[in-house]
């Protein structure tokens, strides 16, 4: 059945399964640390090596070579940038030494953002535990481990040329943020993967060709959402927006199917709440974004012309090119009568751009400083989604034409 589908070749099923396993591994490892245990990363590596079963496919070799390069670069450098050192790997170090996911909830030290989620630190702690000690290099391998499921998903979802262009796009958009130990690039990659899945779900909702079972797509989407939620605080924003963009497709579903899909897609939020948000509430740990006085800060920034110009100029510099690309993709998709797959993701991307814009307006820190230190990284998420969406839209268009001609 799946073999007739031009967008999802059955030959890539192993990759799809491995990607799902690795995403579930991330969540189970986080849960295990909550109880003082951990999952050995060797299981992760063994599962990932199953991709070699698909050795006949060029996507596999491209992916294998790219991941090998990532491993070499990671081992040849140590943790250097501030966020990686003072937040992510410090939290990982605390988990490693205290043997609990919640080590950081004692708020030591005050500047280390104790409210940040711990999926990535938990995996880094597992890597250190596997080696038996903590040093300044080996836990960085967790970055490569976390990138793998999203890259595997793309390898399964795209044909070779599209996959190559997408990988190049990831390297260009993320640049040095990809392997420096920050989580922004990983979040961007996961959101891009979830966006492509969302496109597939919409395609499936109305369509003639997408034969992948709905629960398959929804389960994978749920796994990505759960990982996104536990990656960064912005992950909550991204996951909520993706979920909202996912909802309208239920309109075309029978009531029973819609309820079961809704149940599947509510699981990531329940997991996030019980594993991370509830312990934060119980320990009275709060972030610094949504502090009292948000409204006052919002109006203060809006009434300050210099701040507004600075924010708009930074936004235009970082996102301008991608906004133009998104407009072209939407126009192209409407012309090719495949808007249903592109519009929901375009809504997500525009919403994310706008939400970050508003968050910067409410920032309790100096606008110039916060923009200089974070704007490139935070807006990377929607920008990478534009790249993935563009390649998906162009690639699937070609596949559909081929399918119509030769099927």
């Amino acid at each position: 059945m799946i073999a007739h589908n031009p967008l999802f070749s059955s030959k890539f099923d192993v990759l799809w399964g491995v990607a799902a396993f690795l995403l579930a591994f991330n969540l189970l490892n986080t849960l295990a640390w909550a109880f003082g245990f951990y999952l050995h990363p060797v299981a992760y590596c063994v599962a990932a090596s199953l991709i070699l079963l698909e050795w006949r496919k060029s996507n596999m070799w491209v992916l294998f070579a790219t991941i090998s390069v990532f491993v070499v670069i990671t081992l040849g450098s140590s943790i250097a940038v501030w966020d990686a050192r003072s937040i992510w790997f410090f939290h990982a170090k605390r988990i490693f030494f205290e043997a609990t996911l919640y080590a950081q909830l004692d708020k030591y030290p005050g500047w280390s953002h104790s409210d940040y989620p711990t999926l990535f630190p938990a995996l880094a702690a597992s890597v250190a535990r596997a080696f038996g000690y903590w040093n300044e290099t080996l836990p960085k391998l967790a970055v490569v481990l976390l990138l793998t499921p999203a890259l595997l998903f793309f390898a399964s979802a795209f044909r070779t040329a599209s996959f190559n262009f997408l990988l190049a796009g990831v390297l260009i958009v993320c640049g040095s943020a990809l392997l420096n130990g920050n989580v922004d690039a990983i979040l961007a990659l996961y959101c891009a993967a979830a966006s492509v899945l969302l496109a597939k779900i919409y395609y499936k909702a109305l369509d003639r060709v997408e034969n992948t079972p709905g629960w398959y797509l929804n389960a994978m989407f749920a796994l990505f959402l759960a990982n996104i939620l536990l990656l960064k605080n912005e992950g909550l924003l991204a996951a909520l927006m993706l979920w909202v963009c996912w909802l309208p497709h239920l309109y075309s579903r029978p009531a029973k199917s819609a309820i079961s899909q809704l149940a599947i897609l509510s699981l990531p939020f329940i997991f996030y709440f019980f594993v991370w948000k509830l312990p934060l509430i119980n320990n009275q740990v709060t972030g610094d974004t949504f502090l009292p006085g948000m409204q006052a800060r919002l109006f203060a920034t809006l009434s300050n012309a210099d701040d507004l110009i600075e924010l708009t100029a930074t936004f235009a510099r970082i996102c301008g090119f991608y906004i133009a690309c998104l407009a072209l993709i939407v126009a192209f998709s409407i012309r090719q009568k495949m808007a249903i797959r592109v519009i929901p993701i375009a809504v997500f991307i525009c919403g994310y751009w706008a939400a970050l814009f508003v968050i910067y307006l409410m920032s309790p820190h100096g606008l110039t400083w916060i923009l200089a230190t974070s704007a490139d990284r935070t807006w990377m998420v929607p920008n990478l989604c534009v790249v993935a969406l563009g390649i998906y839209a162009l690639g699937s268009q070609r596949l559909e034409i081929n399918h119509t001609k030769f099927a």
Partner: protein
Amino acid sequence: MIKRARLTKRYMLYLSYAFLLVVLVFFTKNEPWRFQDIAIATDKDRPSPAILQIILDMKVIAGAGTSKSFQLSPPLLADPYIVQRATEFLYPYQIVDKNAPTFAVDRNELVKGCQLIAKRTAVAAYDCP
């Protein structure tokens, strides 16, 4: 028509490989890594270039003693870079603000009556009343 489509597809494939290769080479070149550092990646005490000698010395002193927490002298506390790197790198030894041995570069940074506990090239630890 079909032949032309297949040719286009093949050229697109070659183009994608070439593009990815070029981007990957530039990416690898721009990353801050050194091939010779791979050999020491598994060293237990491998420090990061972000760690100053003073922090390395603090770790040695902390490792040799029995105290699980330390204070920093006022001049060291005034430098956020030192405070943050010391907090991260020294962990599980914690930096606290009272009732613990104090790290100082110079004894004059501290109140009178502090007793020297241990000394390294860049820093020393004192027990203060």
